């Protein structure tokens, strides 16, 4: 039952994609 409740948490599953994109963007910006 508690596992089902866990499913209701809003987890930023694709945070790594955003982190990567941000990192690449600013790495590019900074030459």
């Amino acid at each position: 039952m508690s596992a089902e409740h866990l499913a209701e948490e809003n987890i930023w599953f694709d945070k790594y994609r955003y982190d990567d994109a941000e990192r690449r963007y600013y790495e590019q910006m900074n030459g």
Partner: protein
Amino acid sequence: MAAGTLYTYPENWRAFKALIAAQYSGAKVQVASSPPQFHFGQTNKTPDFLKKFPLGKVPAFQGDDGFCLFESNAIAHYLGSDALRGSSKEAAAQVLQWMSFADSEIVPPASAWVFPTLGIMQYNKQATELAKEEVRRLLELLNEHLKSRTFLVGERVSLADISVACALLWLYKQVLEPAFRQPFPNTNRWFSTCINQPQFRAVLGEVRLCEKMAQFDA
């Protein structure tokens, strides 16, 4: 000494942080996690609850004095002791550093890996493999940090250990089988020390470490 009610659902690892903190500080916390006191999915959608906790999320804490608080790290910080919070400016900052680290670095990949094994999320091979590598990297980072340390900040348990251990809980219970966790002896030692502290045990009970990596539950 803080005293009040913590609204949550059973086995909510985020609530564990506050309850373990309360074990250390002696704060008197009533847990409301089942009807009639609190019915997750219903009570937290009522106007009365939303007035106090606008996000409608748990854990949520209401003090006997009426003081209301949401976000699990804030509740754990409030219910903890000065020692848990870090008794110097530097220690307090390091405690917050690891609490943020737990939420922003550990929880996303941990959830991506564990949720499918609990049958609460569709399995995706690529996402799981990426999450595994990310978890490996985080365990190594902790392993390095804990090489010459017993606890994450200072010489005693702090909210840093409580937060990071709770964020790793499902991983150690579900998927970190001995072969996978073998390269991280310091992290494993630290985790084992934490979960065997009386205050952790009082909340978590006996934590059985994963023996065989759970696969996704179709």
